[in-house]
């Protein structure tokens, strides 16, 4: 039994009649709490990033947002028909492209910033 089905079973038993259509109230509220705190944390963190690095920052957050790959993997593990399997396979392919190109690109840009200028050639100026 996969984790998600365990959780769904738990939700189903814990749900009150008035919230029968929702995940159990606790889970939803905790998710909301996590969401709100992560958003505020993100705003604070990004405000602190030097403007110099905004381009690699975008490449980095792009790669991080490709955690949607995890969503694709989870749904893939539940796939019961071809439609789901194909959709999630494409999802994994797209997201992993982003993850790989994102991190490699940030590394490349970071190296540009770290590269020491070539030693100046003497004797060219008058």
């Amino acid at each position, binding site marked *: 039994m996969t984790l998600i089905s365990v959780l769904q079973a738990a939700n189903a038993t814990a749900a009150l009649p008035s919230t029968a259509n*929702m*995940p159990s109230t606790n889970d*939803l509220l905790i*998710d909301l709490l996590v969401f709100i705190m*992560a958003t*505020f944390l*993100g*705003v604070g*963190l990004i*405000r602190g990033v*030097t*403007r*110099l*690095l*905004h*381009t*690699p920052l*975008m*490449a*980095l957050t*792009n*790669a*991080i*947002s490709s*955690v*949607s*790959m*995890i969503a*694709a993997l989870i*749904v*893939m593990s*539940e*796939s019961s028909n071809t*439609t789901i399997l194909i959709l*999630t*396979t*494409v999802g*994994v*392919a*797209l*997201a*992993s*492209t*982003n993850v*790989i*190109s994102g*991190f*490699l*690109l*940030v*590394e*490349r*840009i*970071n190296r*540009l*910033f770290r590269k020491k*200028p*070539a030693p100046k050639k003497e004797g*060219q*100026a008058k």
Partner: protein
Amino acid sequence: MSAINANELLAMYILAVVLFILALRFMSDIKSSKYGNWSASLGMLVAVVATLLAYTIHQTDYLVGALAVGLILGTPIALRVPTTALPQRTAMSQAFGSLAVALVGVAEYHVDLPHVPAFTMAVLATEMTLGFLTFAGSCIAFGKLQELIPGRPFVYPGKNFVSLAILAVAIAAAVYLVAFPTQGIALYVLAAFALIFGFLLVMGIGGADMPTVIAILNSYTGMSAAALGFVLNNKILIVAGSLDGSSGFVLAVIMSQAMNRSFTNVLFGGVGAKKVEKGAGPTGAKEARPVQSYSPEDVATILENATKVVIVPGYGMAVAQAQHTVKELSDILQEKGVDVKFGIHPVAGRMPGHMNVLLAEAQVPYEQLWEMERINPEFPNTDVVIVVGANDVTNPAARTRPESPLYGMPIMNVDKARTVIFVKRSMNPGFSGADNELFYLPNTWMVFGDAKKVLSDLVADLKAD
């Protein structure tokens, strides 16, 4: 059978979250930025491995195939893309990311059928709408940045009304799906109208506003990933998605502030739509006002006698691939004992921080790159400012003319310098469509021609002396 239990999974996710947060923290300083990438990559590895251990995927062939595609596509994209094309590559990766979340949303909908709880359906519908509109918008942004489609905003009477009506249809389809989840047709309506809305939204935005657009789309991709986290009850999706969402949002705010415009104005304003007809080059300038046109040799003479020079680069430098020539110029001036700085406007280029990367590639030390707020007080004591491929961000009308579309935008006060050298292809106005007052000032020297050509002539003249 899972290799790890729910608590072990959560523990690994917590580790991954800590690594992501540290990664963003490391980006606050250039010295620690390399750890930022390692930390984030490690976090992603931990998260993916944990997921694969906890959720058994039986279709191993599909999984390996998908990962192989990612590796084969991702590696060349990262290693081959020229730094001048980074904005396009960002738009493309956002298109990939948003399509991935949208498709996973559709897949999850099929998993849950036929009994989709209303809450799940509402979140999924929101997530798919965001995902599809971001996908279409990112494709158009890519097309505009790659110059496959005209950068000019596509406007027509009632544009905003039509766009909002289309969005309303998508939302109506979403509401209908929540009420009747088995009506799959509504899903197609939602997807189609979200795609059209995203298409029209970005078609209506000018090339110069792309830094803001890219940042907003970045935010949407993150938000839809977070929404998937709610549906799958997965905390790491929520955290990483909202970190990305807030990152895009903050960058968009910074970009709009740097242009003294609101979000809504960027998204729906269509600035630059009244762009002046195609310019006629240096000889056929429509303005009756005279400009002073000089040759690179004249400029070499004045630079010989300068002690303080500031170079102000813009998107034109990227287009002309002139960053290495700019560095050569800076080197030869420094050898002659001239103090050379670079003044970087926050919206110079086509994505946040673009100029810094280009100049870093040309090995300009980052200590030489000065932000607008720091460089502006320096201009009155500067002998010569060289503007390479920037335009609107130097227009003094932003300070003086309330009727100008640029009025109120913080600009580089280059006009306060003793002499301004303006390297430009023609008398065409910038993306705002506003004529640049700077061209007609007595202390402005216009040098017409391709930025790279003009600057290499200038370097040659300086070397010859």
